[in-house]
């Protein structure tokens, strides 16, 4: 008997999780638009409800279209399983929920999407959870922030908005030494550019809304489990290691082994938090992922060209793109995201806040929107929008100072993007 074949990324992004529909032979994954599924008999129903068998009960928990997307993302990330949910923000709560509890904390990078900073610094306090924000380039500071009540370490692989690259190997080492799971938001990089699990991440979260779907159509999130963390090594993760009253005292980790986190995400997370992805969204996301590698190559090529042009322009103060040799993060590209530093960066414009506003208003091809990872090139003034709820100190720490504009470079012709930037910079300087 031969070894199992291994497949390349381009094959997996088209095939993983999907097979011809067993009911009809349909080659494309059908949209299973149904809320409930008929049980074969009472024994089958009982086995499903007792988690003794995996199957479809109710679409708040599992759905055949969503399941294909889950397996595809899990496979591309090199994880053991994934749970999809209604948005990237939902994914963050779904990832933290099994680990956290009142009085417990998560140690978080200061370089995060502004909405995540707000979610972590304000909203999660209502659950009794706390986030401790630290500069993740200072490993001693990360170590010092971890205390007896810490249950996770959280960062972005390529951090929004500046396109900064986190040293995932080093941070994973710190988390591991403390016996804690590292959660990496891999939205801006996608598994084509960066595979956080290979650098030691325990969990990977995504806003599926961004590059994975790729064309700004649907909202979605995903939590991928590496299957590598020993939840029973300490008594710090009782949701996974201790008896679960809602399932007659079943212990998730003991019963499901390295599938435990994903089982828990379905059986407790989706069941009780209800942040479910709908099958239409899963369909659009699957369409997008089929071309992920092709799009990411073009996003990266365009971002390199546009960032290099901007950097040499006298109207520009600096460009934060990690793919530029001037970036302090340039050295991390080859190790962390060898196929490129993504397509997200900030640009500081001479003339400060006023010039930034004029630049954004003068761009014709770039869309002024609060989104990233679209086929279209996007621009936003982070300090007055995505990072508006932050203090100025938080804005600067996050790389969203008032004098910078964030770009998400699309897959148009790079020369057309440069021409648009040229005319807008002229107006901004005016």
């Amino acid at each position, binding site marked *: *008997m*031969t*070894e*199992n*074949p291994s*497949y390349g990324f381009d*094959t*997996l992004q088209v*095939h*993983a*999780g999907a*097979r*011809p529909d*067993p009911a009809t*032979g349909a*080659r494309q994954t059908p949209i299973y638009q149904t809320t409930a599924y008929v049980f074969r008999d009472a*024994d089958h129903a009982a*086995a499903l409800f007792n988690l*003794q*068998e*995996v*199957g*479809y009960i109710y679409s708040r928990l*599992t759905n*055949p279209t*969503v*399941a294909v*997307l*889950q*397996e595809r993302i*899990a*496979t591309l990330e090199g*994880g*053991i*399983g*994934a*749970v*999809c949910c209604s948005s990237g923000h939902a994914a963050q709560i779904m990832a933290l929920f099994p680990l956290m509890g009142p009085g417990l904390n998560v140690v978080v990078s200061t370089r995060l999407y502004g909405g995540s900073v707000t979610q972590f610094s304000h909203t999660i306090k209502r659950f009794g959870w706390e986030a401790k924000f630290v500069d993740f380039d200072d490993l001693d500071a990360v170590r010092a922030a971890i205390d007896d009540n810490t249950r996770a370490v959280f960062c972005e692989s390529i951090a929004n908005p500046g396109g900064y690259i986190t040293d995932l190997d080093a941070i994973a080492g710190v988390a591991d030494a403390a016996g804690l799971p590292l959660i990496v938001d891999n939205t801006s990089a996608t598994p084509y550019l960066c595979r956080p699990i290979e650098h030691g991440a325990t969990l990977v979260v995504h806003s599926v809304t961004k590059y994975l779907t790729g064309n700004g159509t649907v909202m979605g999130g995903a939590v991928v489990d590496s299957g590598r963390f020993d939840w029973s090594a300490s008594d710090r993760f009782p949701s996974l290691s201790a*008896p679960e009253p809602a*399932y*007659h*005292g*079943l*212990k998730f980790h*003991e*019963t499901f*082994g390295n*599938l435990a986190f*994903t*089982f828990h995400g*379905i059986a407790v997370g989706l069941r009780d938090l209800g942040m479910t992805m709908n099958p239409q969204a899963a369909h659009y996301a699957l369409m997008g992922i089929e071309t992920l590698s092709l799009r990411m190559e073009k996003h990266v090529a365009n971002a390199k060209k546009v960032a290099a042009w901007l950097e040499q322009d006298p109207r520009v103060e600096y460009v934060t793109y990690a793919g530029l040799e001037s970036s302090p993060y340039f050295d991390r590209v080859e190790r962390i995201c060898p196929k490129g530093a993504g397509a997200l960066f900030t640009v500081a414009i001479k003339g400060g806040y006023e010039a930034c506003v004029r630049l954004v208003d003068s761009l014709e091809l770039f869309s002024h929107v609060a989104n990233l990872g679209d086929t279209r090139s996007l621009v936003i003034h982070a300090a007055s929008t995505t990072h508006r709820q932050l203090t100025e100190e938080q804005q600067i720490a996050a790389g969203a100072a008032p004098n910078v504009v964030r770009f998400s470079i699309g897959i148009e012709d790079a020369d057309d993007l440069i021409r648009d930037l040229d005319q807008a910079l002229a107006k901004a300087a005016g």
Partner: protein
Amino acid sequence: MTKNPSDDLLRKILRESKTFACVGVSMNPVRPSYFVARYLNLKGYRVIPVNPGHAGKMLFGETIHASLTDIPQDIQVDVVDIFRRSEHVLPIVQEALERFPDLKTIWMQVGVENEEAAKLAEARGVQVIQNRCPKIEYQRLFGELRMGGFNTGIISSKL
């Protein structure tokens, strides 16, 4: 080979086997060994429970036996599935080879590995699977884990 069995080999074992003897199975319905044995029974396998602490009681319609040797002669076992710690595996395998001359497979559960016992069984032409769970492999290979969004590793355009 036995530590990294191919999907084809696992499929063959799970398709061709009819009876599992589960050594060390628990009667507690939330213990993993009970979960696995009940699942195999639900899928149509005959499950012969072996556990000296519960000998004589019934589980899944079968009498629990104190040892493999105590299993009646008329029962043909295809797979001996071991839910005991690695250091206890060798005498169980020796007993299994003695009791079942036509045994096809020794299966050691997740976390259970014993090279000496594996070599002994393989020398007798018995297939050995170590550090795997037949429930998880069945669910993975026959489409069930796919319903939960797990990475099954199965790529196919066949209907």
